[in-house]
């Protein structure tokens, strides 16, 4: 720790709050969601449904605030994709990381995410999220289908299929995301940064 030269403040208080409450909610929704799906028994179907529903509303609320935050702070620019250095990042994760090669990307407050990360987050936002939320909201409002005439052209089975597919994508993202947190200069460095907001820079 003492050998660290410099510390930069990467994640503001709100950003960390957003990240960790979102993490908690997503984990909760995966646990309860796969129970509702029938993959295992843990909390009981009714409890799982209720928790899943409450978490969904909480996450929606959180997102409402976060979208506001992204635009008022201009932080949304962190998600603009770029193909520059993507190949370098891929090479780093595929080879360099095993040879103690330096990480080709250097975090700055203006560029928090490496190019590969930007692509991944963009994919999450533009593909996985709409799949999950689109199907999830239909699922959530199943009891209103009849009144709105939705039941004439949509089946619960189809909605459940799409929602489950989205959930699997989310789970795969989650596994990769959690693993990649261990690739900092120490295995817990990234997690520390996400907790304190401060990144140690060589």
């Amino acid at each position: 720790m003492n050998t660290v030269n410099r510390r930069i403040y990467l994640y503001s208080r709100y950003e960390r709050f957003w990240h960790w409450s979102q993490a908690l909610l997503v984990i909760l929704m995966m646990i309860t969601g796969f129970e509702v799906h029938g993959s295992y028994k843990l909390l009981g179907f009714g409890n799982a449904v209720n928790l899943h529903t409450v978490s969904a509303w909480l996450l929606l609320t959180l997102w409402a605030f976060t979208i506001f935050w992204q635009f008022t702070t201009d932080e949304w620019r962190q998600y603009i994709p770029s193909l520059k250095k993507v190949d370098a990042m891929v090479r780093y994760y595929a080879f360099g990381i095993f040879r103690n090669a330096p990480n080709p990307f250097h975090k700055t407050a203006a560029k928090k995410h490496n190019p590969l990360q930007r692509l991944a987050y963009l994919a999450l936002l533009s593909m996985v999220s709409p799949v999950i939320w689109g199907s999830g909201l239909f699922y959530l409002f199943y009891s209103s289908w009849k009144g709105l005439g939705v039941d004439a052209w949509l089946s619960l089975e189809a909605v459940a299929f799409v929602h489950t597919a989205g959930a699997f994508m989310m789970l795969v993202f989650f596994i990769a995301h959690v693993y990649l947190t261990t690739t900092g200069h120490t295995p817990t460095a990234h997690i520390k940064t996400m907790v304190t907001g401060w990144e140690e820079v060589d």
Partner: protein
Amino acid sequence: MLSRLKFILPLMAAGALLAAPTAFAVPAAPAAATAPQLETIIKPKASTADHSKFKELNRNFRTGPQVTEACLICHTEAAKQVQHTKHWTWESTDPKTGQVRGKKNIINNYCTSPVSNEKDCMACHAGYGWKDDNFDFKVEKNVDCLICHDQTGTYRKLPGDAGHPVYKRVEFPKGSGKFVEPADLKKVAQSIGMPSRSNCGSCHFFGAGGNGAKHGDLDASLQHPGKYLDVHMDEKGLNFTCTTCHATSSHEVSGSRYNVAAAVKGPAHIRGKQDESPAACQSCHSDKPHHEAMLNQHTEKLACQTCHIPEYARNEVGTEASWDWSQATIMGPDGKPMVSKDSAGRRKFDSKKGTWVWDSYVIPEYRWYNGVSTYKVIGDKIDPSKTVQINEVGGSPNDPDSRIWPTKVHRGKQPYDKVNNYLTVQHTAGEDHTALWHNFDWQKAIGAGMKAAKLPYSGEYGFVDTEMTWPITHMVAPKHDALSCEQCHSKQGRLQGIAGVYLPSRDSNRWLDMAGWTLVLLSLIGVLIHGGLRIYTGKNKGQHK
């Protein structure tokens, strides 16, 4: 200190954000129960007339019909009204299919048919003297007012008297050493009141000749039920009588298994409104009785009974699961008729009737049902190579008038004509030489029964497997005993065999699951290999530091 605070604050905020909604996520204590609550006690049976003060009733009646004549002096239309009901005609026409059913016309898989056995069976006819097919259905004095209106509990009708009450002290059952005393008809007539649970129960609790035997959701324990057995009839609680739900007008009792209101829609009914199906749950509770929309949504697919009657025959009385007539006429080791009981004291074998299997706390069999049943009536052809359905239950998943219903399925094995391929009518009860229970001769019993039913009999009989399906609707459990979600929403749940609905947790797409979990597994293997390699190469920056 400040940095520590920075770290705790967001965590606290996250906690609060998570905790706050639970306050409204948990359903609030019911603000207003959907079923109306009594504000003041209004005794439903309080009458403006004291029948013991009527001079018409202050005489010594010798017979039932004499009492009826006295009743009709004031209640001029009563007999005519009763004569229009199933309680009198034992006949019912399906308004949808036009089929004429009723006890008089169908053959069930319990006692089979009253035809040729009227002297016994008509102990449960709301009339006097129906002993054969010469009974005159127009004679008003033959309507039995007392069986439904007696409040002394002393008025009894026994098999063998064609619907007349006990007039002379008699040993019953024969050889039992127990005697039934004749009722004092004057006292009975003067006791008149609205039907109590015991009145209806004197027949409906004892269908098929034994307590609880037939229905499974009706037995004598409902005379004094606790809350566990029936939340509405609970003697210390709501204390409903049968007619609280089975609202009756002009002696026409609402609610019948012959015509089930299987999918009642709309709001709870208001007092005074002309009501199509007052006996249905929805007439008080509406079709959206829960606080949560997601639960209310279930009423589009499920009958209330499916969740709220988790088991029927919820006591040691139990109900008959099956009746095998093919074992009848088998004698005991001494060559004489034999009777045996099961460990709960319920009939198990009788040389007269065959063998029974009883069950208690029975999990219903579920099926789509639209309220229409097509019955096997006397003379209907059967296919003996299959299990014969005494009643074909209508309904399907796509029919907006069908719901998933709990049913009792009673399995039988009973005689049929092997050449003509129809179920037979047999002369069972009686003292004559053709009666099965007297002479133990199937050939003679079927011959006499078929003659009375005016159907040809080939002379060759066999036994065929039959099933009869009864929608379950009584013995509604308190809400805490209703089915829990996972009793259906699971792989081996109650609704395992129900097609046509996507049931989360029961149903999933096999291919999607396979692809999804494969992908998850590959990701895990991928990160494990990647991480393992990082540790193995020992060049991880973290490990150097």
